[in-house]
């Protein structure tokens, strides 16, 4: 039996989970989009083919995350999206441009294909950077000070780089030969920047926010929490070592950078979640204050508990169908 007072926490966990899955899944395809080499059409085709069957479902996790915020914490949804009105609008336009370019690029006159590829790249960057900016603003509690904007811009670069990193790792796994070699180089460069970015946020975040500071420094939990950044940086180190050695014979371990990158995303996200729980709007609104009526949450929860495992099952099925190195993607 689920008690009414547990419902907000359950929905906060579901929402956090959707955001994380979104960041990983759409992260890699937005990353691939930002990496598109404008001088090599064949590689662009291969890269886009590697994400073609997945992007749509990946993006649905954003709809679920925003949906859960809207369903479970409507007042927080209102505050957050009002504060982030412009970045949200730009994010949407970015996602629109990226999404439609998938189809237009393959169907228009050859001479227009380049234009749609540029829009693909631009849209991917807009979406990633806006998400980073929104994350920065969220961490800064929606202040409009110079410091907050500067931090958010930094965060925009950070998230865009992190997506580039996971996109490059995806390509190491899915591509072969020249493109794979290129991807290893991209991953290395993006790795350095992403590492610096995550380090900076980890230092700045507790310094500007007392609540966060006390959470990370109050024993005994602080000892446990300390594993989060330690593990995260450990994964970075392993990734650094791996990328130095790749590619190996028979393409062994080509999946390792991607798995490490997913781990880095997960632990960075856990770090953020630990910093702000139980606030859904930092320092203003907790999940209990913002929660919808229990009878509504219960109605959706029972459905979600049945449906989400099904979603996982058929998502895995889809990844299995398209398993292995990317092949020429054609449906005509």
């Amino acid at each position, binding site marked *: 039996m689920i008690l009414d007072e547990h419902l907000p926490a359950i929905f906060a966990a579901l929402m956090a989970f959707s955001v994380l899955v979104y960041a990983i899944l759409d992260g890699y395809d937005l990353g691939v989009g930002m990496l598109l080499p404008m001088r090599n059409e064949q590689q662009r085709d291969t890269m886009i083919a590697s994400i073609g069957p997945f992007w749509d479902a990946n993006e649905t996790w954003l709809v679920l995350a925003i949906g859960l915020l809207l369903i*479970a914490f409507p007042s927080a949804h209102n505050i957050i999206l009002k504060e982030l009105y412009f970045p949200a*609008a730009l994010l949407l336009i970015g*996602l629109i441009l990226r999404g*439609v370019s998938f189809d237009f690029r393959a169907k228009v006159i050859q001479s227009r294909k380049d234009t749609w590829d540029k829009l693909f790249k631009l849209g991917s960057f807009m979406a990633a950077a806006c998400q980073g900016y929104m994350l920065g603003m969220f961490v800064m509690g929606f202040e409009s000070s110079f410091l907050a904007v500067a931090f958010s811009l930094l965060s925009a670069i950070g998230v865009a780089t992190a997506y580039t990193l996971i996109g490059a790792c995806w390509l190491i796994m899915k591509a072969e030969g020249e493109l794979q070699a290129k991807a290893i180089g991209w991953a290395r460069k993006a790795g350095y920047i992403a590492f610096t970015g995550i380090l900076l946020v980890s230092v700045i975040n507790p310094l500007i926010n007392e609540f966060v500071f006390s959470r990370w420094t109050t024993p005994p939990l602080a000892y446990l929490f300390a594993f989060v950044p330690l593990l995260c940086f450990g994964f970075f180190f392993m990734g650094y070592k791996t990328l130095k050695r790749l590619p190996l014979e028979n393409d062994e371990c080509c999946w390792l950078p991607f798995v490490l990158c997913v781990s880095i995303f997960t632990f960075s996200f856990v770090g953020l979640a630990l910093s702000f729980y139980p606030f859904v709007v930092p320092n203003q609104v907790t999940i209990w204050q913002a929660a919808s*009526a229990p009878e*509504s949450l219960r109605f*959706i929860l029972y459905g979600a508990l049945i449906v989400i495992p099904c979603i996982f099952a058929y998502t895995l099925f889809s990844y299995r*169908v398209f398993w292995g190195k990317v092949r020429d993607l054609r*449906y005509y």
Partner: protein
Amino acid sequence: MADAFLLSRIQFAANISFHILFPTITIALCWLLFYFKVRFDLSQHPVWMRVYRFWVKVFALTFALGVVSGITMSFQFGTNWPGFMETVGNIAGPLLGYEVLTAFFLEATFLGIMLFGINRVPSWVHTLATLIVAVGTTLSAFWILALNSWMQTPTGFEMREGVAHAVDWFAIIFNPSFPYRLGHVLLASGLTACFLVAGISAYRILRGDNKKAPNIALKTAILAAAVLAPLQVVMGDLHGLNTFEHQPQKVAAMEGVWETTEGAPLLLFAVPDEENRTNHFEIAIPNMASIILTHDPQGKIQGLNDFKGEHPPVAPVFYGFRIMVGLGMLMLLSSWYASVVLLRNNALQPWQLKFFVGMTFSGWIATLAGWYVTEIGRQPFLVSGVLKSADAVTDIAPANVGISLAMYLTVYIALLVAYIKTLFYMARKSVEIEEYSLSELSSRTNEEPGNQSENARQGVTV
């Protein structure tokens, strides 16, 4: 002067108008694709695969536009209509949630297999994936129309401290107007997709495409439209009667009835004048509106003056209704006429083909017109009797809404132009593709070589 309220309304209307164009095609087009694929599986005749492959490309493009414009919607509830979720979030939230959980993931995931998996999975799995996407798009319509209908005819809830709380979910989902609205919208989607398929196929034939595929697609679409159009007339009538019962002020605006009248005429044309609360230039059939709505020539229709200050703006509802019904009638007549011609001669005359090219997007116009009738007809309420639109709007500065509106409009117009141009470009490109070869035919009849020539002679029939 433009305020945040007006701008937010325009922005939302622009958004949803742009969005609805694409699902209204994809919902029914996917069922058509499923039909094509099943015909291929049953007959193994390559022409069905040709038809499938052309239309699945159109489907992919249309679906992508629907997805990206749909994401925008989920953000705008919060950005522009905070009062909506604050007041009725307990009802709207779960319905939207179920749409995402049961429909969006389903269609998005299996779309990948449907589009790109044809050589990676057995044919029956691919057919199944097509079916699942079709079910997903239809489920999505089910949930969003449940919410929309609830906003029109809310039931199954109670108000506590100004906030709606769910009492009976069954009554919320199956609210009085829901079955009619769902049927009406699904049939509208069917007609929109049929006229799109017919129009583009007619364009290909006019461009000298004498292959079998466009002819088969044309015939399928026109015959399907000839079945759906009369069904839509019946469904539209039932929907109207339902609206008359639950939202009489909307029907009064649709019919342009100012004073409560017994034996109201059906206005074929008029210019409603809201300032003087009368109509000009009326062309009417006496007593007809009363007959349609009450099945009694002297039946009473409540007039707009009974709802002063609580009824929608009359002109857009009045004209929108006439555009929708007029196009519906045109669809009915043209699909019946063309069906007779096709069944007799198996081909249409060039002028008839040109007519269908002209009708390619008629479904869009009819759908939008109908949508405006029902949504503007709900005003000044956002949720009938519960929440007024003006009370739900954001307090964001008008200039900010104006800027975002301008950005969205620019993108939408550019995409709409690109979409239509690309459809016709794809049609022109497909003209040059060669007819399926007889070797494709023979590959399936390896076991029974005797059938080969027979099949080739027979060709295929719809």
